[in-house]
């Protein structure tokens, strides 16, 4: 495994953007796990952070806004030997892609999903996002957002994700560790990375992180779904991070498909498929 897995492309994120840290964490996780770059696909949507695939020398697919998970599902089912890592923002995943999020979670494909959650729309210049705090003032909500924010942790657990974690963008090492655990987990792993957007989110800053975030201790039972859910409900002002929930041994979606047992779908020989036995049914 080469040390530098960068593509040579240079990100143009704002100075201080959490995306740099998440990119660094992801690259380090891939390197340390020794994943083959040609067997790794990074799928993203649209948003500042969704440009990530361009910066890593693996296969990448920067698709449509909110449609990361269906694309990743199509890739995974076509070649389940690939490492499929999905990355996208909070608007992409919990907003426009919310329906896919729910349904992909319950399928439990062996996919790792990293959400760059900065509680704001950056690329479109600062509108509130599905995870913005109630009352968040933005150009589209000058009087403050009226909705309750999406809770990524409880949403993931209730939707059926089998690995649910939170990290934050001021801790590259821990974020890397969470991503590594997510990739190693067999099943649908959600890693919500709470991140800074110094340009558009003036509330969530370094001081906010220091004052409000705390790491889950060893006393937290990650195998206990109800307790994990309870921990997930702890939101403001004190926000826990770490692995909330982990369910091991649950069969993945692809394992439930007998047609994938012998070989991956893409390796099937299609040069001379004999359909003559099917014709009999129409006689």
């Amino acid at each position, binding site marked *: 495994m080469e040390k530098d897995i960068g593509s040579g492309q240079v990100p143009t994120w704002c100075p201080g953007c959490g995306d740099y840290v998440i990119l660094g964490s992801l690259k380090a996780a891939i390197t340390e796990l020794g994943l083959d770059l040609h067997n790794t*696909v990074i799928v993203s949507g649209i948003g500042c952070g969704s440009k990530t695939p361009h910066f890593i020398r693996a296969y990448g697919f920067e698709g449509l806004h909110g449609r990361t998970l269906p694309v990743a*599902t199509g890739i995974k089912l*076509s070649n389940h030997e690939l490492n499929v890592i999905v990355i996208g923002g909070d608007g992409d995943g919990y907003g426009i892609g919310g329906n896919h999020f729910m349904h992909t979670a319950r399928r439990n494909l062996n996919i790792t999903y990293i959400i760059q959650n900065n509680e704001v729309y950056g690329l479109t210049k600062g509108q509130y996002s599905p995870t913005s705090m109630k009352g968040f003032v933005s150009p589209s909500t000058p009087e403050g957002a009226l909705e309750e924010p999406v809770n990524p942790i409880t949403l993931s657990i209730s939707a059926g994700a089998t690995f649910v974690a939170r990290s934050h963008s001021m801790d590259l090492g821990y974020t890397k560790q969470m991503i590594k655990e997510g990739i190693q987990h067999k099943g649908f792993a959600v890693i919500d990375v709470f991140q800074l957007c110094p340009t558009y989110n003036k509330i969530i800053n370094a001081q906010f992180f220091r004052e409000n975030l705390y790491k889950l201790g060893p006393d937290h039972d990650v195998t206990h779904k109800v307790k994990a859910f309870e921990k997930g409900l702890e939101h403001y002002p004190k926000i826990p991070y770490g692995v909330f929930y982990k369910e091991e041994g649950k069969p993945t979606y692809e394992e439930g498909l007998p*047609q994938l047992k012998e070989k991956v779908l893409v390796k099937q020989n299609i040069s001379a498929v004999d359909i*003559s036995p099917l014709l009999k049914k129409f006689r």
Partner: protein
Amino acid sequence: MTEKEIVNDLSWKIGGEAGMGILNAGMMFAKIAMRGGLFSIAHAIYPSLIRGGHNHLDVRVNSEKIYSHRKEVNVLVALNKETFDVHKEKLTGGAGVIYDHDEYPIQESELPKKDIQLIPIPLLKLSNQFGGRIMRNTVAIGATIALVDYDLTLFNDILQQTFAKKGEKVVQDNIGAAKAGYDFVKSTLRHSFKYTLKKEHQKNFMLISGNEAISLGAVRAGAKFIAAYPMTPASSIMMTLAKWAQQYGIVVKQTEDEIAAMNMVVGANFAGVRALTATSGGGFSLMVEAFGLAAITEVPLVVVEAQRPGPATGMATQSGQGDLHFVLHAAPDDFPRIVIAPGDIIECYQEAIRAFNLAEKYQLPVVLLTDKYLGESYWSIEEFDTGKVKIDRGKLLTDEQAEQQQNYLRYKLTSDGVSPRAIPGQKNCMHTASSYEHNEEGHEDELEEVRIAMAEKRYKRFEATQKEFSDPELVGDKGAEVTIIGWGSTKSGILEAMKSLKRDKIKVNYLQIKYLSPFPTKKVAEIIKKSKKTALVENNQSGQLGALIKMHTGLSLDHTILKFDGRPFFPHEIYDEIKKIVKR
């Protein structure tokens, strides 16, 4: 009866409520006819509900090749009174009505013509001896076979095969019910019936729908993945492939919505698997953004759009051709897509295979545009030759070729616009495909010259596809008084109308435009210019093909025959209009 007997030219209709087994009965009757060496067509009309409503299904049988269903009815099986009331005007002279006099009496005075026979049968009473009211359709088919003097053993064989899985008792009950209906008519019919069926030399036939033919084509072409969301009239493609999935190693994914379906198919094709989705206009609306995604990422894609009338939910279970312009222009900005409209069963099969080859060879989206009539009706046709098929994967790199690549460029500018295609898992060819405009590497790039080069590259591939398509051909008479122009499933009604026009010694010919994008401009213009009179036949309100022809050739057609009531053309509707045009 003194009237002349009509042998092997029968239109049979069965009608009742949803849930009465109308479709199954119709399919069985069409198969009975087919297995006796006759041509048959089954066409069902049903409302969008599970119970109640009025369902009816036509089976047309002939000893010669037939193309279309027709309006007139020679035998009407009325499983309720409504069926008789709705369809009695379609009964021909000498026709018969099979119905249950105990349950819903019909009086002679209700008949629209004098020489129609009422054939009262205690359907319910007889079916109750063999497993209940659900058997009424079986009794009625047995009765029909007696009425038209056909062969009951053909029906017994089908019942045996259909119900074998459910055990011997069910088989015997069905055979008993069929015989009860048969015997009742044989013993009570006062005089011979005008319409009869006689077995002919057995042919190598199968009874198959357009959706099934497309499914067969997809399997033959090596499609291994379908993601779809149920939507009439396309759903049976997903369900058919699901039946064959284990045998052929196909993954069938029913998705949360059509957006997911199309994006999954893009992902699967990106990963190197031949994949498709199938939907109707409403579902395709949701797929449109990802349709553009396939275009800009140059991922091969096949989508079946089986049309039904809209807008929005429209008429969920009816037929129409209103989506031609929609699929031609779906998704923002200019980009090429191939649009193919099969006109019959064999074309559904062949064009499905072609679609997969073209999608991969030119790395662009291909639409197979059908409709409810073609997709869900059944035709007896000669078995496909499933042997010779070329699987052309274009510039897809083998693993060995990929490994030898140096400085691989996924979107390399080439003379034909098609770039060598690598897929995940292959060494040395890692790249990112992006929905943004991009450079040869695939990275986002908005420089003017890059944009122009990429947009031109995408169209170059389209120009290269032109050589793949044969010119449309005129069929029919030379020196025709009228040249009929159409696309898709209207082929059946047009060819049937042409048979009648030929009998009247009216010279007509027919131009079927199967390939709508790229459009065969030169040939179409040439044919129109040489025609005496042209008549456009379309199952839509505005004459969308006519507008397309005008756009490409600058030529207007002389006459339009349009139908947009949600039903496919009856041949006589085209026939009548052409007659008027000739007289003008």
